């Protein structure tokens, strides 16, 4: 049924899918992607004919695969086949910019808007991953404003009361301030400090930041989960919190990147980064917090 869902959601592709993607845990493509050490190549464009883009900095494996023969070699077709979301022609292409200790890549969100993931390594056990959401578009802002003002003008013509016009201006201003301060999220970031905890920050367009810090003792694991959201099936990253009473149980699930909703390729990057740091605490001789 899942295969049928995915087949129905994705448009006909030139290449047949060898098999449908099920649980990310048993998707071999995903597993191979999540294998450590092959960070760079998996997020490249699936179409073999296309040039590798900024290939100067790319590792050799990517070029070789990009120029490969295609389907018989079973290339990783990209996350769109797994996600089942509507892909665009530039889906999955990521451009890497390396600046200092910081890396920035472009991805797409679940709805197709462009987002950017910035990874920064502060130290061996501290890493910051920030997803920048698309900015407020001028055209949507002007569309809403003109709609409201036209409606107000229409009311004014009907009622001849000039208070309607000033009320409309007021409403537009207040609405814009409320939207920027409470609704529009500019950037969502994840700061993972091994042996201390995980900090989730959402910064709004007006500069407000809302932060939550979860101690490492309460974190059980960071996983990619899938969910049905409206008419799509999307992947999301979440933190599983430990149940203090039951060591095997999960008391709470904290979803991450709720408003930017990155696609699977971006989530895999973030997942791999987090797991590298979380592994360190398992190899440490002493454990933190309560057990």
């Amino acid at each position, binding site marked *: 049924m899942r295969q049928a869902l995915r087949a129905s959601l994705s448009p006909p592709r030139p290449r047949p899918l060898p098999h449908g993607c099920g649980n990310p845990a048993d998707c071999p493509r995903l597993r191979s992607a999540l294998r450590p050490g092959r960070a760079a190549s998996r997020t490249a464009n699936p179409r073999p004919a296309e040039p590798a883009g900024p290939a100067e900095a790319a590792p050799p494996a990517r070029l070789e695969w990009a120029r490969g023969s295609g389907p018989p070699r079973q290339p990783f077709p990209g996350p769109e086949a797994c996600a089942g979301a509507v892909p665009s022609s530039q889906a999955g292409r990521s451009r890497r910019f390396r600046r200092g200790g910081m890396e920035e890549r472009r991805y797409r969100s679940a709805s197709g808007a462009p987002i950017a993931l910035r990874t920064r390594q502060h130290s061996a056990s*501290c890493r910051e991953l920030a997803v920048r959401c698309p900015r407020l578009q001028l055209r949507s802002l002007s569309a809403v404003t003109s709609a409201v003002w036209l409606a107000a003008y229409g009311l004014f013509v009907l009622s001849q009361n000039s208070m309607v016009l000033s009320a409309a201006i007021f409403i537009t201003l207040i609405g814009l301030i409320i939207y920027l301060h409470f609704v529009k999220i500019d950037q969502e970031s994840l700061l993972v400090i091994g042996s201390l905890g995980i900090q989730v920050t959402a910064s709004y367009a007006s500069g407000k930041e809302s932060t939550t*810090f979860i*101690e490492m003792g309460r974190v059980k694991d960071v996983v990619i989960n899938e969910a049905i959201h409206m008419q799509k099936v999307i992947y999301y990253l979440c933190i599983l919190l430990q149940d203090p009473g039951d060591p095997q149980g999960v008391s709470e699930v904290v979803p991450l990147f709720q408003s930017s909703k990155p696609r699977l390729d971006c989530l895999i990057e973030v997942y791999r980064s987090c797991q590298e740091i979380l592994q360190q605490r398992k190899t440490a001789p002493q454990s*933190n*917090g*309560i057990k």
Partner: protein
Amino acid sequence: MVLKVFFPSCCSSAESGILVGRWLSEQNSAVILAVVHFPFIPVQVKQYLSEVQRVTKVNVSVLGSWSNSKQEKEENLSKFLEDLGTIFSHEPWIQISKEGDSKFWSCSTLQKLANNPKEEEVILIYYDQRKVMLSHLHPPLDTATSTDHEADDASKLSAIFHTVAKSKILFMTDRYDDGPIKLTHWQSDGVEASIIVELMKQASVPACMLLTFLLSLVSGICRSRVLKFWPLSFLWSKLSTCEQLGHRLQHLQVISSSKKAQTQTQLMRKANIFVSLLIDVALGILLMSWLYRKNRIGHLADTLIPAADHVAEELQDLLQWLMGAPAGLKMNRALDQVLGRFFLYHIHLWISYIHLMSPFIEMILWYVGLSACLGLTVALCILSDIIALLTFHIYCFYVYGARLYCLKIYGLSSLWRLFRGKKWNVLRQRVDSCSYDLDQLFIGTLLFTILLFLLPTTALYYLVFTLLRLLVVIVQGLIHLLMDLIDSLPLYSILLRLCRSYRLAAGVKFRVLEQQDGKPLRLLMQINPLSYGSVVQMYRLPTYSCYPKDSWTSLCKKLFLGELIYPWKHKGEKQD
């Protein structure tokens, strides 16, 4: 294993010395509380620390050394500092050194007893000592576990907050004191010597005692037997003003008690009640001054009688309309006339009583308005009670209509059972079959027909008066909701969250500072304040809130059957 060092930001410019604080071994973190400067005698330091430990019950010890070298010399200082490690044995011995004005410090550990000493990563976390000392972490641990030291180390953050808060006595030594030990830690800049605050603190004790005495007098009078006679006690229970006054009396008793608040929650509750009372009385006095200026209360009294007359006239019109052919429905003429005339006479009586009272209304209202100085909530209660008294006749009509309708419905249902040959068995509380005689069946059928054909008339009267009654109930309910809001809002907590947001902490947040390769990771720990919603939820004052007693389905059922409805239930009222 990563070592975490919590360093107070006020000690960043301190002279070289040794670090004093608490070591949390299960989390591999060190909370530095102060720096002890050279020269010192180790024995005295150990004595001082054991005294502090005895008083605060926090395991304070010497954790390491701190060297702040302004010039590039002092190579032998490092050897000296290492030797200190042997005097104050602590495992691991932390050495932090700062060169000149550099932001990037180097931090290393000395482990003598470890089997395979390995280079462990160090994270340096700066924290603001004053803010962490004053803040309270939410959700607060309950009193049962706070006495148990092992239990409150369950969360790493609460352990740090607890350590800094309990070590207050360590922070009491002034930097200008001439003692054997010189410490650097957070210093208060001097107690604000505001005379008014000091006077208020001195005056508060006798004021509290006076208030307690007065309150005991008042509550003694209230509990006296004179006021317990039946008509008076019924009246007191029905008037919401008395309940509100009793509620406020309780609040005053909480504030004026001479026992100091033990926990943070109790302190906040006392403060919230105090601020709420203050604001309430201030708003009440404001309202009173507005009412009495330009004799507005006289105008109000003057408009009260015409308003009551107007309501009575409207009711009369309504009854005339019901007695005719309301909305084109055909009523049973005789019953219609009987009911209509009965209600019209009732209204006539009511108008006469109002006119009898009219010369006294202004004086009564004038004196009753004075009680608004007791608080805005009391004024709202009085308003609600005045509305209840003025619409008393609507309540009476509703009761009459409901009783009549209820009787009719029960009669109909019982006679319907008679048709089917069944009977309600009171003993077994169930419906049983029964064989009736012919004359019983005949009379039953007659009565059933009569009741059935009179049903539309009664139902219409019932409907109209129930709607009026519901309108009055909704208005009263809104006033009570507003009153509840004023009663239960924790204003002091909200003000605290606004002005001193670090006092109410939901958690912490970390900021990564500038890094340099080879140096430990630098983080800044700041307090993450509670959101306003959780502040209100956590510190809400309990009220005798009135909330709907019945769910919608039971309300509809009661309306259909004609049972009397009292939709708002007060907490503490006995269930009937």
